């Protein structure tokens, strides 16, 4: 057993409202530079839909990920090492910019510079690639909310797989949103495709990164990644990808996309896995067995034997603790409600999803039936094959049994919690119907519905605290700031002298207070405090001094 730790994410799709806040904040943080206009480390797709880049899920066309060769051994679907080198001068499977979209800006200056004229001047779209006028025909989320799906919907590779049973008819359709980042796979095919060896997986937390100094722009990673989450920066000529916001993760903060997620649907935590079993699991013959196989690679962090092996492998104690409290482990292995995205690509992805129950609930609601009744929901899950089969194509290589199981658990949770919220006697038979105890069900509800910031994000910081404080070291003890362990006080020359509080520490604590407090801004007793800026200096308004307590 070779224990390794992996930072992983789970997204609860039932909560995603498709607001694209994650995409926008990610873009602001990482890809707002020239050359990265079309690069979305995080994007939100409407499903059914073509995805970004268009039809990226069609691996018969793009040849991403891994496949088993005739002898049953795992090989790159795009061809082995020799083939890669022979096609290096012109990558045959590279999506062109049109498969993404041609980025553009608007000629805003005409709005202010245009001479007086009869008609209002127009800001024309200008291509950011060629600089010429262009017609906008596609974008990162052109088919958002099923826009244009009567025209394009049938091109969705997943719908095509179940097409013999369903014709894509707009009136009967269902939809949900799928936010996607890099999967930070256990068996990354992008890294395996890189001729220069510039893409690496970090040993400590499994984050997959591109070494910008080693990348030579051969573009094989773009073809190798079945999720098309490696992008080619056309200005620098280097590959770029989602970094899992490693600078934030290292200091214990969640990624930008999670931090700003309005629906609070993302969970981040550690998974411990057995690195020796990854190859074997990825080589599972049956595609539909890959989900189970990957779950078997994960280790139970509470198992004393695993803890011993982890310590032996050099994983710090606080990381093991974090793995035990990990919401990811709970969702994937304990409650088994999270599923991997396209396990059939055999890359062992590490961003998992809780499939949405809402398409089913919506249909039941439209019929006028009670959409929180167990019987109705269970029957609907059984009857509504189209959404369920579609979800199965997405998460379990087409096997509907696990998806059925998860949806029924979610449905059961809905019914069970309704009884509790309505003040009725909880019905123990509901959790039992999906093989859970009442307590488990309630815990799962807590985690899915009301988990707070530090329950959703259990991120142990990297062991670099010391270096971080050294960064801003002046002349004094680096721990000597207010509230710090040094607490040396304000010295002989008063508060204003001496080294300032390290800005990183100040910011970090302020941010953390704000993130973990229940109110939107400010502390609980904000209303009782007095604003000194408005105080004219006379008398003592209430709240100027803290209350003396009950004894006075």
């Amino acid at each position: 057993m070779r224990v390794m730790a992996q930072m992983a994410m789970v997204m609860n799709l039932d909560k995603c409202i498709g607001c694209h806040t994650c995409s926008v904040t990610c873009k602001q943080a990482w890809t707002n530079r020239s050359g990265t206009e079309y690069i979305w480390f995080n994007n939100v797709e409407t499903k059914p839909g073509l995805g970004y880049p268009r039809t990226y899920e069609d691996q018969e066309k793009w040849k991403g990920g891994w496949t088993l060769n005739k002898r049953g051994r795992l090989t790159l679907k795009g061809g082995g090492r020799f083939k890669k080198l022979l096609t290096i001068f012109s990558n045959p499977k590279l999506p062109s910019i049109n498969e993404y979209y041609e980025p553009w800006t608007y000629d805003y200056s005409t709005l202010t510079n245009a001479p007086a004229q009869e008609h209002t001047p127009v800001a024309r779209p200008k291509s950011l690639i060629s600089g010429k006028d262009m017609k906008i025909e596609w974008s990162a989320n052109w088919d958002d909310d099923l826009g244009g799906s009567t025209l394009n919907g049938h091109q969705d590779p997943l719908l095509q797989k179940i097409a013999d049973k369903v014709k894509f008819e707009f009136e009967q359709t269902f939809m949900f949103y799928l936010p996607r980042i890099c999967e930070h796979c256990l068996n990354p095919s992008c890294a395996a495709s890189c001729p220069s060896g510039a893409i690496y997986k970090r040993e400590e937390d499994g984050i997959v990164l591109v070494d910008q100094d080693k990348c030579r722009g051969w573009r094989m990673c773009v073809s190798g990644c079945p999720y098309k989450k490696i992008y080619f920066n056309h200005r620098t000529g280097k590959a770029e990808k989602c970094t899992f916001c490693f600078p934030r993760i290292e200091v214990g903060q969640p990624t930008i996309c999670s931090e700003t997620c309005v629906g609070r649907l993302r969970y981040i935590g550690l998974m411990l896995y057995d690195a020796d079993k990854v190859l074997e699991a990825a080589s599972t013959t049956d595609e539909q067995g890959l989900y189970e196989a990957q779950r078997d690679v994960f280790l139970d962090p509470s198992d004393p034997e695993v803890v011993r092996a982890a310590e032996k492998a050099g994983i710090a104690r606080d990381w093991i603790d974090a793995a035990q409290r990990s919401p990811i482990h709970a969702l994937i292995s304990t409650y088994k409600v999270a599923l991997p995205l396209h396990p059939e690509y055999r890359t062992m992805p590490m961003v998992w999803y809780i499939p949405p129950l809402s398409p089913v609930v919506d249909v039941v609601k439209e019929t006028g039936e009670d959409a929180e009744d167990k019987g109705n929901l269970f029957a609907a899950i059984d009857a509504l094959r189209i959404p369920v089969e579609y979800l199965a194509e997405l998460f379990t290589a087409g096997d509907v049994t696990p998806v059925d199981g998860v949806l029924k658990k979610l449905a059961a949770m809905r019914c069970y919690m309704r009884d509790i919220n309505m003040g009725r006697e909880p019905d123990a038979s509901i959790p039992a119907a999906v093989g859970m105890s009442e307590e488990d069900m309630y815990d799962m509800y807590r985690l899915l519905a009301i988990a707070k910031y530090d329950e959703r994000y259990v991120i142990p910081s990297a062991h670099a605290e010391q270096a971080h404080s050294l960064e801003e070291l002046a002349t004094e003890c680096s721990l000597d700031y207010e509230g710090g362990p040094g607490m040396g006080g304000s010295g002989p020359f008063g508060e204003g002298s001496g080294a300032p509080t390290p800005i990183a520490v100040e910011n970090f604590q302020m941010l953390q207070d704000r993130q973990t407090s229940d109110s939107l801004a400010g502390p609980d007793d904000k209303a009782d405090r007095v604003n000194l800026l408005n105080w004219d200096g006379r008398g003592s308004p209430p709240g100027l001094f803290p209350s003396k307590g009950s004894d006075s």
Partner: protein
Amino acid sequence: MNQFLYVVFPYICLTAFVLGHLWRYRYDKFGWTTRSSQLYENRILRIGSPLFHFGIIGVFFGHVIGLGIPKSWTEAVGVSEGLYHFLAFSVGALAGLATVVGMVILIYRRRTVGPVFSATTRMDKVMYLFLAVVIFLGLFNTVAANILEDYDYRDGVSVWFRGIFRFDLHPELMGEAPLGFQLHGLFAMALFALWPFTRLVHVFSAPLGYLTRPYIVYRSRDTTRLGSHQPRRGWDRVG
């Protein structure tokens, strides 16, 4: 004059070649890339690029044999003059033709496809000029030396070229060579001097290591440099 053109100038150029690469590698690893434009345009590139690159690889090995291996060696293993020239001319002309056709296609693409042209730097244009001149002169020499006149470069140019690396200088041999060879040599030297400052550096990152390395690369966080600068003396990390 010969002394300058065929002794001083080559040494200047080769020094620039070596030092330039060392400098570029040390200070501009980030800029060390193929700067591919495949994202902009794929259809023409798919024909032109492999044609050019495989052609030029052939041309390179042709030069290794023609310039690097003394005539006495090939004769010692029993390759007659006639056989050698037949092979050199046929394979050389084929590779040269592929290179030229590929290059013409690529330059046409670079000029006519808008996005590709706007991503072309001034250095690229200078480099293309020198590269094109060198390649055209080379192809011309291959044809001319074998058909029109009978110049055996292995007794002339090759000896001069090897002499540069052995400090056994024969500028007079170049002075006697036909004008085509002289110009080819001079422009090639100039191209070598330009080399480290252009996108041609990507030649040196031909990823042959890919054939032998493990598929997945793991790296540990660099514990010697945790902050944005090196820890000062006396602040070494404990443990």
